[in-house]
């Protein structure tokens, strides 16, 4: 691959020196301003994506129940009962921003936009976006960190895999549609790996010492949606308009 990229790089460098940019048009990152382009060879997840089989209830990679601690198991059972009695007991019925990883399973497409310093994940669901820095380290979790609905994220490349770590999320959100709870101590690791041009293999690892007896993982798949136009999708509870 390096032999393919080298002439392109030389052409881009020559073009920049000459103050011309058209030679860069064949570059995969030509839609980005020159200073914002990732290093050649960086996997390109940019595009529109959707989950072909949205996940309702999270299971481990082996298809088992997540390893809930007894108190969390009781909370999960209570959430399921409440949901059965009234679908609006799902916190997402309040239109609050859905946390990570649940926002990934929402029933609407998403887009990924990469540049040199960050990965932007934009979800059609209630126009929610995550701006994930590839340069800034994750803040340290302590009592001074104000919890956010989407927490605090930091990303990096592990070979060809995009890794995003997230901490500092509110504990009012559920991890899935079935009512799986979590605490503010939740740590989520998302791993995104291209599998051919039009498919992403995703893996999640959830660590939460107040909810789970041990870290556990599950998988998901995203499929490219060429030409899809993200729609304006608005969720407002009890509105008067």
């Amino acid at each position, binding site marked *: 691959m390096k032999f393919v990229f080298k002439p392109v790089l030389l052409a881009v460098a020559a073009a920049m020196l000459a103050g011309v940019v058209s030679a860069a048009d064949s570059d995969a990152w030509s839609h980005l301003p020159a200073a*914002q382009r990732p290093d050649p060879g960086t996997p390109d997840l940019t595009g529109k994506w959707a989950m072909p089989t949205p996940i309702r209830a999270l299971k481990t990679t082996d298809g088992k129940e997540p390893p809930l601690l007894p108190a969390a198991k009781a909370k999960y059972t209570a959430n399921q009962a409440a949901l059965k009695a009234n679908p609006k007991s799902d916190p997402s019925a309040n239109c609050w921003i859905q946390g990570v990883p649940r926002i990934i399973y929402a029933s609407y497409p998403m887009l990924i936009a990469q540049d040199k310093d960050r990965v932007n994940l934009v979800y059609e669901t209630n126009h929610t976006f995550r701006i994930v820095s590839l340069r800034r380290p994750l803040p340290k979790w302590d009592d001074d960190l104000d919890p956010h609905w989407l927490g605090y994220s930091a990303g990096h490349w592990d070979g060809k895999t995009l890794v995003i770590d997230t901490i500092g999320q509110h504990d009012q959100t559920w991890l899935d549609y079935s009512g799986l709870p979590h605490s503010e101590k939740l740590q989520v690791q998302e791993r995104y790996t291209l599998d051919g041009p039009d498919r992403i293999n995703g893996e999640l690892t959830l660590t939460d010492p107040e909810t789970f007896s041990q870290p556990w993982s599950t998988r998901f798949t995203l499929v490219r949606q060429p030409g899809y136009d993200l729609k304006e999708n*608005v969720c407002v509870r009890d509105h008067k308009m």
Partner: protein
Amino acid sequence: MRQFLVCVLVVAGMATTVVAQEGTVRKLTPAEQAQLDTDNKGRSTPMTAEQWLARRSGGNQAQRKTWEPTPPPAEPRDFTGLWQLPGGNINLLQENGEGAPFTPEEAKRTQHLIDAEANGAVLTDAASQCFPHGVPRLSFAPYPVRFVYLPGEILMLHEVGHNLRIIHLDRKEAPQDTPQSFLGYSTGRWEGDTLVVETSHFNDKTPLDFHSSHGTRLKVTERFQKQKTSQGYTDLVVRITIDDPEHFTKAFTVVRHWPYRSDMAATLGADGITEYSCEENNRNVETTSDGRVIIK
């Protein structure tokens, strides 16, 4: 209130096509004076006319050093980074200081809301109910925005209410079946180093500023261009042309200067865009223990 003589040092533009006025000295127009009086209501230290005009054109230049410790990308078409309008710019005053060319009906409607507010009414709008702000209302909000480039699209990620705008660069017009929406459907093109964005297919549920309304025939044309200030800082200048024959007698243009805010990139979380959950009221509205609402 007596009129102030104002000396405005207007931006000397970059060596491009920006129109720059040099050393403009003028009095506030009656419309501007009325807006200044409104903006000064409840302020312990009233703004002078000079301060007020400076805010409209990108903020106090002496402050800019702390806003822009590192400069923006050099490429003129590279809008990446954070931009933020200084507060208190939510009005439809034209660049020459004249008010908007309302139709008689819209003038009446607008005045009715201004009077109601003066008499203690609390006005709500789409944004205060957590709907998207509408355009150009969104462009008047004093919160940071980040531009994101995609093949054939540019996104604007606004902190306020996590408003998301999508500018389609790969289309000349909206598809035929495009529904009406709060933020409309935007197409864009580059004219030199200016990003020209045309937006239509709005619903009629958002105000243009705090008091004036629009219909579904509204068309908004925004021209975004980077421009150096007199002291060498960088603004994203936004020239917004509003065309709605049902509410205005002619198309008119308002201008905003969004200063570059490299200082904000150090904010924890989301690389400079702090989470803003209108749905949870986590930003603007707080209640006291006895239930009173405090507007920050």
